């Protein structure tokens, strides 16, 4: 098997593993379907926006939870936003973490909210790394003149 074919095989396997392990769900597949020759960078573009958005939200959440008197409505609003964007790109584990987080906002439990934020950060970083790797594999295939396999 030549190098490009090998890389293509690895790319497909890696992508499938992300779905299998629950990092990504069907919504990500929707994104892939929206990409075409007229919009070849669509997925990377949307995911980059998600990364920017997420980092802002994580900072805002950290600040909000550091206040002497925590505004749980505000915290909930940020988590709601994060839940929305992660759901829109198919980042399943992140979305699920947001759902759990919102329950603790309702309880106004600072300690649990702080733990949730840590967990949310971990899940976000994990999916960010996974997607980063996926896009890198894609770039390497393209650089060697190969095409990106759909399946």
């Amino acid at each position, binding site marked *: 098997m030549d190098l490009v074919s090998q890389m293509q095989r690895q790319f497909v396997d890696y992508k499938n593993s992300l779905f299998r392990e629950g990092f990504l769900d069907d919504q990500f597949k*929707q994104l892939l379907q*929206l990409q075409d020759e007229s*919009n070849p960078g669509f997925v990377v*573009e*949307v995911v980059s926006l998600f990364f920017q958005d997420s980092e802002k939200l994580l900072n805002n959440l950290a600040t909000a939870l550091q206040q002497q008197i925590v505004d749980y409505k505000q915290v909930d609003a940020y988590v*709601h936003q994060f839940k*929305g*964007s992660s*759901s829109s790109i198919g980042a399943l584990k992140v979305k699920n973490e947001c759902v759990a987080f919102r329950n603790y906002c309702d309880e106004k439990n600072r300690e649990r909210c702080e733990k949730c934020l840590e967990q949310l950060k971990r899940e976000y970083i994990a999916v960010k790394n996974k997607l980063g790797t996926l896009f890198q594999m894609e770039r390497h295939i393209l650089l060697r003149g190969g095409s990106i396999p759909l399946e």
Partner: protein
Amino acid sequence: MACSSSSSPPTSIKGAAVDNEERPHVLAVDDSLVDRKLIERLLTNSACKVTTAENGQRAMELLGLGDGQHTINNRESINLIITDYWMPGMTGYELLKKIKESSDLKEIPVVIVSSENVPTRIKKCLEEGAQEFMLKPLQQSDVKKLRFHMMKLSKPTKSMPLPKSAHKF
């Protein structure tokens, strides 16, 4: 902070070629940048012209209900408004109310989208005159359905041949 108005030229749209005049013009309102990008792509793929706004206030300005500075050229060309329900400042519901209160704009169908399936919220929006309430994230099939509705609802402003892509839906 300005709204983005971007729609691919007809040649890049999959399926039957539709010329500019036949493409429905949709105003999509959402505070999430990710979701605006998504809805824009979904609508463009369904042969729609898209203008986006990041909040209700901006949407009102574009529709000519605000200070009137930056309205869409010929706002009567808006065939559909899709708005997120939950937005800071003005909710999609509040925007819906303002549109329905305006004699100029009340005929424009408004679709509310939300990530949460709350029956009382859905009822409230439909009672206020929303055309439809849809759950996020939107799928291409949802948008195709909306496109079909727009074809049926659009008032003929001049004699137009049957849209070429109508049979697809």
